[in-house]
């Protein structure tokens, strides 16, 4: 039975010229898990909010959203609250109260549920989500992942029929995101709740979804089962970037003879497909695997130190080097960095990867001179970094952009923000124009920083740093929450900067991004660097902490790290050409 029917829905924001939604028709059945994908600004969020009148924006609406057989506007706030749950992006600000138990009870308090029922429901949800341990904690002590689980639990406590989630994991690291998806899967399969979710991180969601909807420019471009979308999207390269790696591989390399092979969604299915495709084409699968194994060993051996050639040449002296640095926040606290060492050369893009709490952010805070290590050395241009004054160091030599770039904005428009730097440092006004065109932020320069998308904000914040031409740029979690399109563009821009001679150190959870754009990857674990080398050297040997493409290819077609490398290799193998050339 259809739970939500959207009929010819169009929506225009007040004062806007183009419609945010145009002529949307969509049916969501009871118990379905629906994934809505598409680039930033395609109208996903607007559509989700039309399904929850309490959050719908004002504007010109035509068409209708029918919920459970009646127009959604007819639902009073009480029924809307109880029957439609909504979880938003930012876990931090979604939480209203200061204690976990209070937040869990918030919805029931609104509904005026009686004390006994409230107690049972809250306890039930605390159990389901594994919240009992931090039930009495203040919210400020939770991690980002726990906060988002709390947001989800505080909605589920009202037992909604429909659960809507708007990019819920965009602020989470991959492990927390995987946890979150697991919980969603349990809610869908164990409670039967209908779920509608938008997400850039599609890799983990495709296997869970019953229906996938692609949106573009306010319209629905495709809607159907996740497996069948590979069929329909063949030849449309723009949408490849939002498909899981296994599917991209399938859509790009599937031989004619395998028309009936089901589209792979997971790594496991991707591997099955890859094996089948390679043997189907007569390319010597056994042999490939064997040589692949040898290559892997070789790369693992020399993966140690050797830096890769970058635009500026690899034998150049490092501009910044960190030597056996130890750091802890307080005298009696645990060490965060335990003898971490790494070098950065001009014109190089170094990515720092590693799990939560591995010391990545602390590493760049120490390397940039923000934190003072209690043992070990940080040398900038051959001189200990502590010897520079704040004025000499920050801005002109190193630029640091922390997570959440919005925090570095004070003024009401991007232009004012940049002009403040220009005026304060008495720079040429032409410098501003140069940087603006370099970072491609001309179209948003007069907008308020709070009105632009995450990807644009990141670029504007980097532009602000670039005005002073620092030789080393530190970026923390810069790709967080960016969609595939913005990420690609961002990577290209970073390469543009390194080709001008800037060194960039990027902390990221996004292994796919690092694999594609980095010159070098430093992998952190427990406060130290445990692997340092080219993306291929570091990632192709890993089994788990690596790209999806490498996991699909592992042991079958070794040496492929990015999706495009894997596709090229498969194509080459299918063409009958030996891989080892």
């Amino acid at each position, binding site marked *: 039975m259809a739970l939500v029917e959207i*009929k*010819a829905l169009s929506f225009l924001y007040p004062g806007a010229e183009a419609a945010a939604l145009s*002529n949307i*028709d969509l049916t969501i059945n009871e118990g379905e898990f629906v994934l809505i994908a598409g680039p930033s600004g395609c109208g996903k969020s607007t559509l989700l909010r039309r399904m929850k009148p309490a959050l719908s924006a*004002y504007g010109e*609406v*035509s*068409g209708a959203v029918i919920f459970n057989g009646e*127009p959604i*506007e007819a639902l009073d706030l009480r029924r809307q609250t109880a029957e439609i749950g909504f979880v938003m992006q930012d876990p931090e600000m979604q939480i209203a109260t200061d204690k976990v138990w209070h937040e869990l009870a918030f919805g029931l308090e609104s509904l005026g549920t009686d004390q006994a029922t409230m107690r049972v429901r809250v306890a039930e949800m605390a159990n389901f989500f594994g919240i009992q341990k931090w039930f009495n904690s203040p919210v400020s002590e939770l991690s980002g992942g726990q906060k988002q689980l709390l947001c989800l639990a505080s909605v589920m406590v009202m037992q909604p029929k429909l659960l809507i989630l708007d990019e819920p994991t965009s602020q989470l690291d991959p492990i927390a995101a995987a946890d979150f998806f697991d919980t969603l899967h349990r809610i869908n399969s164990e409670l039967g709740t209908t779920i509608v979710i938008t997400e850039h991180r599609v890799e983990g969601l495709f296997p869970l979804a019953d229906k996938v909807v692609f949106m573009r420019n306010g319209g629905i471009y495709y809607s159907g089962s996740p497996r069948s979308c590979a069929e329909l999207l063949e030849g449309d390269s723009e949408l490849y970037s939002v498909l899981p790696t296994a599917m991209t591989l399938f859509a790009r390399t599937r031989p004619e003879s395998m028309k009936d092979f089901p589209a792979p969604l997971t790594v496991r299915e991707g591997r099955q497909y890859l094996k089948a495709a390679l043997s189907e084409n007569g390319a010597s699968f056994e042999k490939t695997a064997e040589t692949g194994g040898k290559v892997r060993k070789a790369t693992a051996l020399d993966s140690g130190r050797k830096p890769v050639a970058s635009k500026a040449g690899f034998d150049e002296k490092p501009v910044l080097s960190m030597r056996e640095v130890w750091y802890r926040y307080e005298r009696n606290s645990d060490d965060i960095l335990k003898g971490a060492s790494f070098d950065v050369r001009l014109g190089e893009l170094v990515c720092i990867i590693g799990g939560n709490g591995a010391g990545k952010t602390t590493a760049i805070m120490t390397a940039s001179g923000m934190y003072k290590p209690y043992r070990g050395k940080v040398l900038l241009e051959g001189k200990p970094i502590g010897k520079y004054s704040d004025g000499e160091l920050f801005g002109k030599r190193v630029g640091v952009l922390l997570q959440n770039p919005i925090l570095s904005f004070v003024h009401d428009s991007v232009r004012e923000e940049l002009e403040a730097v220009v005026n304060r440092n008495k720079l040429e006004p032409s410098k501003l124009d140069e940087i603006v065109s370099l970072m491609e932020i001309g179209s948003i320069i007069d907008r308020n920083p709070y009105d632009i998308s995450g990807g644009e904000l990141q670029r504007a914040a980097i532009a602000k740093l670039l005005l002073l031409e620092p030789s080393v740029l530190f970026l923390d979690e810069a790709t967080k929450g960016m969609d595939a399109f913005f990420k690609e563009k961002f990577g290209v821009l970073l390469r543009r900067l390194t080709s001008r001679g800037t060194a960039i150190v990027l902390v990221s959870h996004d292994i796919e991004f690092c694999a594609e754009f980095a010159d070098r990857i430093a992998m952190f674990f427990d406060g130290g660097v445990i692997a340092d080398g080219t993306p291929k050297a570091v990632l192709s040997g890993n089994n788990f902490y690596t790209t999806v493409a490498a996991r699909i290819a592992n042991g079958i077609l070794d040496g492929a790290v990015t999706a495009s490398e894997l596709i090229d290799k498969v194509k080459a193998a299918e063409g009958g050409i030996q891989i080892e050339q």
Partner: protein
Amino acid sequence: MNEAAHEKQNMHDMTGGGTDERILAAERLRARMEADEKKRRLIRRIVSAVLILVFVPSVVLVGMLEWHDRQYYIVSMLIILFSMVPFFFVFEKRRPRARELTLIAVMVALGVAGRAAFAMLPQFKPIAAIVIITGVSLGSEAGFITGALTAFVSNLFFGQGPWTPWQMFALGLIGFLSGILFNDQIKSKWKLFLLCAFGAFATVGIYGQIMDTQYVFSAAQNVTWEMFLAAYASGLPMNLIFAAATVFFLLILTKPLLNKLGRIKLKHGVFR
């Protein structure tokens, strides 16, 4: 009927007979809800104004006339507590919208946390300036609530005491008055000067005076003028620093903060 519309009609016919009806019904419902909301907002505002302007002065008056010969401390504290009741009562009764609540909570938290940003300078705190700007931008009611709750929440961190109701009342009153005396069009230098003058008066004349009075009432039964004078004189240096801080913050923060609050009010349709 043009072609596009025709096609739309056809499509609706195909997807189910009642759909068109349902779309129309949805639109009618939307229009009626918007009109209702406007009417409700007007009534609320009138009721709250009457209650605050009539009820508070009468409570204070009755309290002073009836209880003048008993003990000052408990009586004055009760007067203070009772005079705050109508503000909170009206605020509760009109069931403020979620966006108003969060905005007030943010201003309260800024007042409390702002103190930490200037921890190195004692008594140099932005609390009063933030309360005044809140009153100017969001109106007298929000000004009072923000002021009173800033004092209350601040004391949740630094310790409640018998001074809590007095601080709440003093800061609340400052927020209330700034909402009555100024509107959010502080464009000229002259108006900013007036606002700063009010800020200086409010910190010394209202906050300082009320807190020093509190001390006199707490310590003495037969209060004399000399006692008040002595208390005010001893409190003056601290009050003057607080006043200087308030003027400083008002001079610098008023314009950007009013702009920002104005933007938020516009964007979210609150406090208009």
